[in-house]
């Protein structure tokens, strides 16, 4: 019994990790007022670049770096479209998701002549049975909370997300802060992707983000746009994921599909105010135009 509980606990922490780091990324972006539904694509691109780099260099750490850079680059693109050109943030996010999905499938073909997955690659080391990246991810989540709530840059980010015009008036560069938030969201979701291909598995498989980018978005909302809240929500979603695997082994009466549904149902309920009011940053999703006053 004790061993079952312990393994459930560890599985929860592991399953929550990629969702958590991506949710932290989402928080960085949305706190500054930019909605990023391209997280799914940034994660996928991160997973792919990480695996490919690890394959060619033999160094999984180089892979992690590549994953973060490629996620950051896609996010930069999202920034150009939605901050500089004030395009529709949702459209840009969707386009990024489609691009990442197409690009990774295409490059699998070109590089490895495979349509489903990459060859096995060098994996990250483990510590007490968990990938070392899991520890790093939780550490980043806590640091992110301190960063957003205790530093001057964090205060500026929140100011830009709540009232960009007021922030601009006191001399904060709204565009720069938003670029920072968005690029951080890509870097962190790229890291989440790298965990999938180098921490959880040792290869890239087609579409391996499997909706986690969207779950991360849900976790951020559920966590009320705060990193600490995201940790809680991600653990809850991770538990649903881990619990379902266990339930399938021991309880045959509940179809696993209903358990897999729970994160999404919970998010809907949370948004509907059943679990407490979730309030987004006031300027979330609003493009800012300096000359628009």
């Amino acid at each position, binding site marked *: 019994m004790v061993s079952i509980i312990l393994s459930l606990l560890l599985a929860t922490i592991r399953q929550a990790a990629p969702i958590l780091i991506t949710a932290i990324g989402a928080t960085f972006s949305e706190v500054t007022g930019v*909605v990023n*539904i391209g997280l799914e694509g940034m994660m996928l691109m991160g997973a792919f670049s990480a695996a490919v780099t690890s394959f060619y260099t033999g160094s999984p750490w180089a892979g992690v770096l590549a994953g973060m850079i490629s996620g950051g680059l896609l996010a930069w*693109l999202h920034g*150009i*479209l939605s901050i500089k*050109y*004030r*395009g*529709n943030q*949702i*459209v*840009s996010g*969707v*386009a*990024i*998701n*489609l*691009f990442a*999905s*197409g*690009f990774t*499938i*295409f490059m699998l*073909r*070109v590089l490895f002549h495979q349509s489903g997955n990459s060859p096995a690659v060098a994996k990250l080391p483990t510590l007490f049975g968990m990938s070392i990246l899991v520890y790093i991810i939780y550490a980043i989540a806590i640091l992110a909370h301190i960063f957003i709530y205790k530093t001057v840059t964090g205060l500026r980010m929140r100011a830009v997300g709540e009232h960009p015009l007021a922030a601009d008036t006191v001399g904060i560069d709204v565009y720069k802060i938003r670029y920072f938030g968005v690029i951080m969201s890509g870097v962190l979701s790229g890291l989440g992707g790298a965990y999938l291909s180098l921490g959880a598995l040792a290869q890239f498989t087609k579409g391996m983000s499997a*909706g986690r980018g*969207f779950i991360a*978005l*849900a976790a951020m*909302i559920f966590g009320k746009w705060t990193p600490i809240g995201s940790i809680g929500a991600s653990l809850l979603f991770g538990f649903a994921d881990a619990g379902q695997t266990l339930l399938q082994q021991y309880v045959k009466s509940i*179809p696993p*599909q*209903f358990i*897999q*549904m729970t994160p*999404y*149902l919970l*998010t*809907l309920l949370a*948004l*509907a*105010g059943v679990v407490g009011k979730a309030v*987004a940053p006031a300027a979330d999703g609003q493009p800012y135009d300096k000359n628009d006053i």
Partner: protein
Amino acid sequence: MNNKLKEALIPVLSVFIAMLIGGGVIAYLGKNPFTAYMYLFQGAFVGKREIAQTLLMSTPLIFTGLSVAFAFKAGLFNIGSQGQMVAGGLAAVAVAAFVKTPLISNVVIAIIAAAAAGFIWAGISGWLKAKLGVHEVISTIMLNYIAINFEQYLLNYPFKEGGVAGPSPVTPPISAASKLPSILPPTSLNFGFIIAILAAITIWYILEKTVLGYEIKAIGFNPTASENAGINVVWGVVLAMGISGILAGLGGAERVLGGIGQDRYISGLMASYGFDGIAVALLGKNNPFGIIVAAILFGALRAGAMKMQFLAGVPSQIIIIIQAVIILLVASENMFKALLNRKKVS
């Protein structure tokens, strides 16, 4: 340059630039882009079978494209066409494969069931938005995943065909009376394509010629002003999402009843049509007839990709890249506008 022309120029330019980029990638792979594109074109348009295939591939995209565009007119971003399509397809197969009474188990009833399921599934998001202020982008994404899990449940348990094991569960085949007839035998191009065209005309008519269309557009422009002008905004939002869902639901019905999934609902049958619908709506500039053209373009890319892969040796996945670049470019229309305007100044 006048604004109307500029509006129309952006999608055309986007497609052109994306094809150029695609050509560059093909050349980089050491293949001849002209040969590749020639086979792509032949595979999509030269021959009865090829044209039928192109139109067949474009049919669900017309439905989901219209679905996204209609919601958009009311200022709503429906990312949930996927889930609504699944809901529609499941409702259609529930009637078509499981109801045995001759009066009820026919194609018309199955289509009505699919439309109703799509209406309800999207209506939930509309209601959550209008009543509780839940952003429709998040609620529709969540409902997509709920629908997909529900699909897996139904296909694995109550709807599962007896005795068929394996990782990809399927339903029993639909009854003969519920099949959408072919309009170009012996190809699989079915009556669903005609329904899609009729749907586009209907949507155009609703938006341009009816009070409902006017109210929906008014809500899209300014919900507060519409409320003050006496428009029932809550009902308008639910209805706009609901009609959007009906369109996606019809798309789901076409996939099941049109013989695409071997006349049954196969796991994953709805693929990524929902998200592709967003692309189609964007490229078609939310205009019903523009959407037909955009859907046929995407359908042609898919239909021609196989021939290009076989005869030119270019991986068919290149078309996903071309498609993604098209959307990225259309999404950056403000960038185009900035560039076009700058030229005029200098």
